């Protein structure tokens, strides 16, 4: 894997994509899939693939990719192997927004369907802005302040969320489902909604691999080597937070992808962020696709929220990574 990380990642992604299109309440074998994609397949299969499987697959892949690259960026920015995209409040902010939107009974018009994601997106970004503003001292935003403010605001938002859930008991189950990460449905509309933000955010991050390498030496050395540290960190933080907010607004809070995928890719291809960033796009997509497949089949016909799968699989995996990282030359 060390020798051809891109190739291996692409192959794994391809397999994951095929798996995701094939598996569900109706199993679609490979040749039927190929027929449908060519335009000559069985009508039922075509309907399933174009209306359900493919949009879901694409949304899951995009979400996983977003979480992967965002997690890598956060770990690079904070120089901390425990950093994940929810560190400074995106998740708790989005959760609060989602539950607020669910408590207000929108009629099922277009806005009804988009109400939850839209509100979640806005509150997620608002939360990050508040955290950033609190953490700022003059012209600089010290990392420690960001983390502390993030923890504080996240707790606050999370407790507000719990309070609201207790008060509107009919919506609790729906809220829980969303908070655990799932309910990934809705055809092609969500994809069209998130694509512009993802493209912008991912492009910005991919151009900042060298900057992230420099930042590993500390703000002082990075500045002395010619990086405008304050500006770059703000840029990377904004792009990563934007991507994360976009991802969670439709898919809910899916944990561990943003935490584990960077470590996996680091183990496989080293610490250079110019490689890590694109690889964590591919790795994140694959990881979430596979988790989503498991979520669909493990207790079929019932679907487990995918956030539960990632946590159940992610936690032991994370412990394994932790044990391995005691060796040097890894982080």
């Amino acid at each position, binding site marked *: 894997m060390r020798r051809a990380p891109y190739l291996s990642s692409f192959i794994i992604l391809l397999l994951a994509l095929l798996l995701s299109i094939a598996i569900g309440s109706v199993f679609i074998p490979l040749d039927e899939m190929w027929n449908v994609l060519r335009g000559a397949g069985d009508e039922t299969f075509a309907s399933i693939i174009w209306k359900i499987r493919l949009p879901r697959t694409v949304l899951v892949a995009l979400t996983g990719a977003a979480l992967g690259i965002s997690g890598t960026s956060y770990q690079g920015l904070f120089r901390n192997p425990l950093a994940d995209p929810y560190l400074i409040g995106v998740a708790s902010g989005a959760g609060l927004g989602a539950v607020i939107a669910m408590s207000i009974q929108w009629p099922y018009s277009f806005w009804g369907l988009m109400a939850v994601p839209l509100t979640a997106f806005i509150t997620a970004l608002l939360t990050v802005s508040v955290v950033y503003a609190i953490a700022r001292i003059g*012209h600089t935003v010290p990392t420690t302040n960001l983390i502390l403010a993030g923890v504080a605001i996240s707790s606050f938002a999370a407790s507000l969320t719990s309070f609201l859930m207790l008060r509107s008991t009919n919506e609790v189950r729906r809220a829980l489902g969303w908070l655990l990460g799932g309910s990934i449905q809705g055809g092609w509309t969500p994809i069209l909604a998130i694509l512009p933000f993802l493209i912008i955010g991912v492009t910005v991050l991919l*151009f900042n*691999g*060298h*900057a992230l*390498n*420099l930042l*590993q*030496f500390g*703000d*002082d*050395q990075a*500045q*002395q*080597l*010619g*990086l*405008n*540290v304050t500006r770059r960190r703000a840029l990377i933080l904004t792009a990563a937070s934007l991507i994360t907010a976009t991802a969670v607004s439709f898919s809910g809070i899916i944990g561990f992808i943003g935490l584990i995928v960077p470590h996996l890719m*680091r183990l496989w291809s*080293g*610490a*250079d962020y*110019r490689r890590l960033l694109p690889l964590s796009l591919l790795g994140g997509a694959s990881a979430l696709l596979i988790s989503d497949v498991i979520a669909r089949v493990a207790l079929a016909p019932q679907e487990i929220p995918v956030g539960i799968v990632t946590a159940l699989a992610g936690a032991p995996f994370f412990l394994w990574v932790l044990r391995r990282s005691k060796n*040097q*030359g*890894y*982080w």
Partner: protein
Amino acid sequence: MLKIQNLSLFYSQRQILHDIDLEVRSGEVLALIGPNGAGKSSLIRAVSGIVPVRAGRITFNGHDFLRQSATQRARSIAVVPQATSLPAAFTVLETVLLGRTPYLNFLGQASSADEQIARSSLERVDALHLSDRYVGEISGGEQQRILLARALAQQTPMLLLDEPTTHLDIQHQSALLNLITAQAHECNLAVLMVVHDLNLAALYADRVALLEHGRMRAVGTPADILNEKTLKPIYGVDLNIVQHPDYLIPLIFPERRVVA
């Protein structure tokens, strides 16, 4: 040539540097000495542009240094920090290549010319054989040499060094300092070096600047500055100063007081 005029530095309300005047000429090694807390590291940080300066001017070859962008500053001055907690997962070559940052395009792509410069810098510090090793695997002395190589790869007319020999044994100390003085004299670099060890300052510096409580107390040759009369009031300890038998420089020892 670096010219510092009327430099004053504050950390919040506390004044760290008072009205500092200093010149560092091309081709010379200027050692900055002084007691702990005098502000030596703060002066380095101010000159390298990472802390905002309250008052004063810093010009480099006539250009107003503080108004320049980070990239422009990085093409004029390279800093060799102390080798503490370097990222362990980068290779030596990758680390030295980062010294080429001020010359790379916005994608951060290093050309083969950049790689050649990095390798020749490694060769000058006698660390080329370490190119593919991980930074986490090499010794403290080797890490310090890598940081010097990175600064040399920046190809700047000036070097700032903050106690470059602190964690080095005597062999590596002398190797590093010999290298720095050779670079200064042969490549006409201006070198400003913070040192604690007065004898190293005596051995390797062309001039010495004495800083105390944020004020520049004296600037001159080692013979001018490193004498009992100048040093005792600053360091507050009795000193034995003898002439080195071969070189025309002072050797400085504190008085040994035997507690009865």
